[in-house]
């Protein structure tokens, strides 16, 4: 555990001594600022009885998904690929740390960085509430479920990115693989829109993997256990694949 914490700290520190970390933070902060501006404009135009988080998601889901889809590969691309490229992976794997510890440290390192990335959102929402004269504009429940959704999706995308990074020595290739996998997963949502109105088993399946709709539920304050299980199990699956990929040097 102590060793694991040392590793996680090192992973997190890695983001803040390289340009990648600050660039991603700056880009995401810019997108937040933009979405915040649009949200305020909307609130000035008309009253609304939607929860703020849902408004944010509804009108700005474009921004949210852009952050999730584009920032995730950038965050995770260096986890394994960079160490393999510089050779420090060899020094790491010849210390008495287990493969699982390394995988989990890399995953949680990138996941914590992802959470840091999202922290301005909470600030934005509280500023809106402060000036809206309506203390009920944000209730802890909807805020909590929104953050839960963002966190769960983040965990899934981080695990997926770590897996992509463990496959290659090149950060660019790692980012491309993560992007392709991530976007594919996102685009599954649109299959259910494309087949709207139909019934049958295919429709049922696509409804269950519609990330966009599930995230809308989270933003509305609805916590359905099915997407939670889906995200968690996909996260575990990708971490398992990462572990196998790290161990593959033993039988390659």
């Amino acid at each position, binding site marked *: 555990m102590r060793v694991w914490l040392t590793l996680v700290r090192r992973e997190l520190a890695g983001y803040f001594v390289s340009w990648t970390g600050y660039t991603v933070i700056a880009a995401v902060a810019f997108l937040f600022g933009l979405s915040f501006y649009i949200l305020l404009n909307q609130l000035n135009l008309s009253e609304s009885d939607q929860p703020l988080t849902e408004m944010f998601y509804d009108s700005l889901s474009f921004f949210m998904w852009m952050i999730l889809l584009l920032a995730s590969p950038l965050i995770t691309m260096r986890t394994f690929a960079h160490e393999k490229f510089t050779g420090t992976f060899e020094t790491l794997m010849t210390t*008495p740390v287990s493969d699982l510890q390394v995988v989990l440290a890399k995953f949680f390192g990138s996941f914590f960085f992802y959470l840091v990335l999202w922290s301005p959102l909470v600030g934005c929402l509280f500023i809106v509430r402060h000036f809206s004269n309506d203390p009920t504009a944000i209730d802890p429940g909807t805020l909590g479920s929104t953050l839960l959704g963002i966190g769960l999706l983040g965990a899934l995308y981080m695990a997926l990115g770590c897996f992509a990074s463990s496959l290659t020595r090149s950060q660019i290739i790692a980012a491309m693989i993560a992007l392709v996998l991530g976007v594919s997963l996102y685009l599954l949502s649109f299959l259910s829109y494309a087949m709207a109105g139909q019934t049958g088993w295919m429709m049922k399946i696509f409804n269950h993997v519609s990330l966009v709709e599930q995230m809308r539920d989270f933003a509305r304050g609805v916590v359905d256990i099915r997407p939670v299980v889906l995200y968690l199990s996909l996260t575990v699956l990708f971490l398992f694949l990462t572990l196998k990929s790290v161990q593959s040097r033993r039988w390659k």
Partner: protein
Amino acid sequence: MIEVVNLTKRYAGHRAVNGLTFRVAPGEIVGLLGPNGAGKTTIMRILSCYMPATSGTARVAGFDVFTEADEVRRHIGYMPEHNPLHREMRVRDYLKFRARLKGLGHGRSRERVDTVLEQCGLADVSKRVIAQLSKGYQQRVGLADALSHEPELIILDEPTAGLDPNQIRAVRQLIKDLAGKHTVLLSTHILPEVEVTCSRVLILHEGRVLADDTPRNLEKLMSKSGRVVTEIAAPLHELEDVFEHAVEIDSFDLSPAEGDYIRCSLTARPGLDVREQIFRMTRDRDWKLRELTRSAHSLEDIFVRITRPNQEDEV
């Protein structure tokens, strides 16, 4: 300290290590010598539990590298080829981080980092960023890392590659200082290195051990068919005449040198030393003699001869 029995590592298509067996006693400094591709790095990666062998067993400090990898890793300090480091970190922070990874506690790791900084001559640069250090210093950082948890066995893969002569000398001295306290296994394809630092040499070729002895013994082995170089001031045809009639001399080669002297390279019959005879000959005929040396075979010759058995005659 190390016991390797019948070790084989097969990559797709070829064997990098082929039925290797050797043993290293505690306190020895052993050099793995071989051309590129002889399997040096593969052996070291197996011993440091980075990857397993295809077959055979290897034990380090009594622990099996495959089934007791964690224990083995606690007992070895490994510096891979090209000495990979987290170059954006500061020297002390890096060593501290590595010491913690190896399971040292907070106080203990600080203590050990101070010791190895001192030991490797890094105390002055401990606050510098690794990327800004010269290659010689970076190599010391790698060495300090390998030493930080006081391992019994230190494995160094080409520790002096890419350094300038002064840096090489400094790193070699560091390695020599480790003798006695630690067992050291180092690989190199630079011959003087093992001559200077190692107490034993294993010459590898295509994944097999071709020779296993002290550097001195290997040289002795080779010097039996000694070559003698001498410079004598004498008429060329007389010299030719003398050497042709000397039964001890197998072959000779004469070439004019500076002044009146003629440079003679003589190959004596195996096991004979003809230097005394040549001295007597020049004294008897009143020729001037200004050089008389037996060219000892360096490890270089041994190396070339052993690893290229088919072309032995050219050596």
